[in-house]
């Protein structure tokens, strides 16, 4: 288990060398803050288009290293070959293992920082044990298929979701993020979203897995993730266990008031939609930060060419 208190957790999040600094993180940092919709209005599109053509002609005129010296439009160097990135059963299992390590990281950090106490801490400890067992199981399946087991948190999910979410909870002096007013409530809300996404990930992998025996194994774990989320739904919203949202049932059985963000059973089917979670201290306008957690997509899978260090 990682052994750090809240201050150390903040420092670890500022210098995430073990879990977050990687090629994915660089891409995210390089593109963060860009507003493509605003920068490409129709007028600007034509202006940019004209500039692009002119620039292309200039580049072509400069030619490649084997130029005959005569400027030709379209004379460009051979592009670098992209690495082969195939979504195989091994890739899916490695990605599942990485997601388990994301959960392990969160629960270890929360435990070390003492963000949960009493019953909530007991529940979190059980979940931590379960995720360790899941990581071992998916790693074992990976090696059974001849692959190399992955042993780190998913780098993209760690940098895009996990570290920003934990910063919203514990605060980050370097970037001026204040700690949240109720860390325990935020941790439970984050755990609810994370467990829901974990279940959704295994569900999403079922039609992608070529070996059908792996489908059952994957959903054996997905079943447990879904139950984790449901238990947290019971804790967060005991007044209504099963949402009536979207259901055709008699008005007397519909819930009153606004739809809540957490339920033991929020919908009939397992969702593939992003799971929203509200975290952190309110800003001067009283608004808190909304984070949408999503299942790993093609750009966050742990392909076989990625090594175990991420």
């Amino acid at each position, binding site marked *: 288990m990682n052994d750090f208190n809240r201050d150390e957790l903040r420092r670890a999040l500022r210098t995430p060398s073990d879990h977050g600094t*990687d*090629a994915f993180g660089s891409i995210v940092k390089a593109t963060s803050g860009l507003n493509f919709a605003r920068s490409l209005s129709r007028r600007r599109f034509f202006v940019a288009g004209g500039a692009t053509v002119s620039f292309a002609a200039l580049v072509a005129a400069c030619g490649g290293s084997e130029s005959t010296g005569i400027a030709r439009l379209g004379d460009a160097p051979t592009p670098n*070959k992209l*690495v*082969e990135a*195939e979504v*195989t*059963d*091994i890739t899916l299992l490695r990605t599942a293992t990485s997601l388990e390590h994301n959960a392990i990281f969160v629960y270890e950090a929360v435990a070390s920082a003492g963000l949960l106490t009493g*019953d909530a801490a007991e529940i979190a400890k*059980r979940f931590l044990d*379960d995720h360790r067992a899941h990581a071992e199981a998916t790693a074992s399946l990976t090696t059974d*298929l*001849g*692959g190399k087991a992955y042993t780190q948190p998913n780098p993209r999910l760690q940098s895009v979701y996990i570290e920003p979410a934990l910063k919203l909870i514990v605060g980050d002096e370097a970037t001026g993020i204040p700690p949240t007013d109720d860390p325990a409530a935020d941790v439970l809300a984050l755990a609810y979203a994370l467990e829901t996404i974990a279940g*959704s990930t295994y*569900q999403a992998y*079922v*039609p992608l897995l*070529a*070996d*059908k*025996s792996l*489908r*059952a194994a994957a*959903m054996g774990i*997905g*079943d*447990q993730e*879904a*139950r*984790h*989320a*449901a*238990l947290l*739904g*019971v804790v967060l919203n005991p007044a*209504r*266990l*099963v949402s*009536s949202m979207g*259901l*055709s*049932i*008699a008005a007397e*059985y*519909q*819930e009153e008031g606004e739809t809540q963000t957490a339920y*033991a*059973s*929020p*919908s*009939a*089917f*397992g969702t593939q939609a992003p799971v929203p979670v509200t975290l952190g201290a309110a800003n001067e306008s009283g608004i808190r930060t909304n984070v949408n957690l999503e299942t790993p997509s093609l750009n966050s899978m742990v392909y*076989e*060419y*990625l*090594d175990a*260090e991420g």
Partner: protein
Amino acid sequence: MSTTPVTSTSDKSAATPPRRPTSADIELLAFAQAAELTARDLYKQAVAEGAGGDQIGSLAALAAHHDAYAQSLSALLGTDAPQARNDELFSSLKSGFGSNTESTALAAHELENTLVVTHTDLLGRLDGTEGAALVASILIGESRHCAALAALAGKSPVNDIDLFLTTSDVESLAPQA
């Protein structure tokens, strides 16, 4: 991070699974639809009997969930869908779904656990990916039902945590080859 291209070795030669249900899949999915209609009717009976207390809306929603599962399976199966509950299963379980909230919740918890085991069994046997994807989404829903029903039965998420998290050691209901 390595940037060296590595050729995958696991399943490049594996045949792509079919998308639509095979004839063997249809038999399994038809069984699943009958089981879902059975669960729907059991919850409807419990609601009619007055079980659930201030969570009666949750029981009504659970009936609607199982109806939604049956309808989705029907859409996948078309004319092969049985569109009828499994009367033998309904008769064997109906005494558990009465007016008492705690006993009904425990009977429903056992039923949902059995459906989770059954659907996990199906996932290892279905060939078509459409059927497998649908069964997986139903399984996630029913896993969450188990935890909801443990709470409805008055169990503690701490002291009785295994009732919330652990799938019972029960037999799959699905017909075996």
